[in-house]
């Protein structure tokens, strides 16, 4: 995997297609990797919308011809191009910032929870940040799972505490990071912080809508460099 090859599609005149990659490159092209890539970021496979065609992939399949050569099989249909095109609007929606610290050994989780409580209380007291715009993650426990499937009754040997927040002002975003500076000497002892350099990020919220395609005119310009 340290020398991944790009996938190559060899498309014949009749539309039949073989997926492959350069010899001596890493990775693997087989029906399993093709299937995963095929489904990546797909919604309804019967109506995959591009600007020029709506594709029906429902019947797609992959057949391995030999190592790293896979043929696309099945009845893949195209439908009329959409009458509408998608437009994304980016809207400035304030700022976000995060901080990350670590605890180790027995009781690490309890110390992380105490530190989170201290930071949280101070942020509610000194900023305009509300509960719904603050997120607390215990990395190693619930940062991805959100405790959604089962409640883990275990304490890891080391744990990351991450607090991230959305704010209306840059000052409040800065305050989140500042709390992680001061918790070093003003919270539960034994903090590791690493080299991480946090920064304030401006939030650009995306809003999507559809407009009739005849409202969109396209042109191109060639520039000499």
């Amino acid at each position, binding site marked *: 995997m340290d020398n991944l090859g790009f996938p190559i599609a060899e498309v014949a005149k009749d539309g039949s297609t073989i997926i492959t990659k350069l010899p001596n490159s890493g990775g693997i092209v087989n029906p399993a990797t093709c*299937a*995963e890539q095929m*489904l*990546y970021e797909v*919604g309804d496979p*019967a109506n995959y919308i591009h600007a020029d065609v709506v594709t029906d*992939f429902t019947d*797609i399949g992959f057949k391995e011809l030999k190592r790293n050569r896979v043929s696309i099989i099945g009845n893949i249909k195209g439908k009329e191009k959409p009458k509408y095109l998608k437009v994304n609007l980016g809207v400035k929606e304030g700022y976000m910032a995060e901080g990350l610290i670590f605890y180790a050994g027995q009781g690490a989780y309890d110390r992380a929870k105490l530190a989170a409580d201290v930071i949280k209380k101070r942020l509610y007291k000194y900023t305009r940040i509300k509960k719904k715009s603050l997120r607390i993650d215990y990395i190693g426990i619930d940062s991805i799972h959100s405790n959604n499937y089962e409640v883990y009754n275990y304490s890891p040997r080391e744990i990351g505490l991450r607090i991230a927040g959305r704010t209306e002002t840059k000052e409040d975003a800065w305050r989140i990071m500042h709390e992680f500076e001061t918790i070093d000497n003003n919270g539960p002892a034994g903090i590791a912080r690493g080299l991480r350099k946090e920064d304030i990020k401006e939030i650009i919220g*995306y809003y999507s809508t559809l407009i009739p395609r005849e409202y969109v005119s396209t042109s191109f310009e060639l520039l000499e460099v």
Partner: protein
Amino acid sequence: MSKIFLREICHARSGDKGDTANIGIIVYDMNDYELIKNKLTAKFVKSIFKNFVKGQVVRYELPRLGALNFVLHNALDGGATRTLSLDAYGKCLSSVILSVEISI
């Protein structure tokens, strides 16, 4: 009846489009396709992610691939540019679902 992790019979990939996430789940052996069709209902998948998937979960079938595609609406805290989640693009959702146990 015994239990297995989904990971023993399937592989998966997940990603995002705005505030929508999708998880494609594919069987290794076509003989297991009926089993996952029965077990992995849209309702079941929604229950796994109920803490953060606010919208509907829709299931699509791709029989020749031996795959199910789940589309999770309002699933990513407003999408990658807004979310406070570490998994901003929902790419870990595939690993989370493969760790689910099902009875066989």
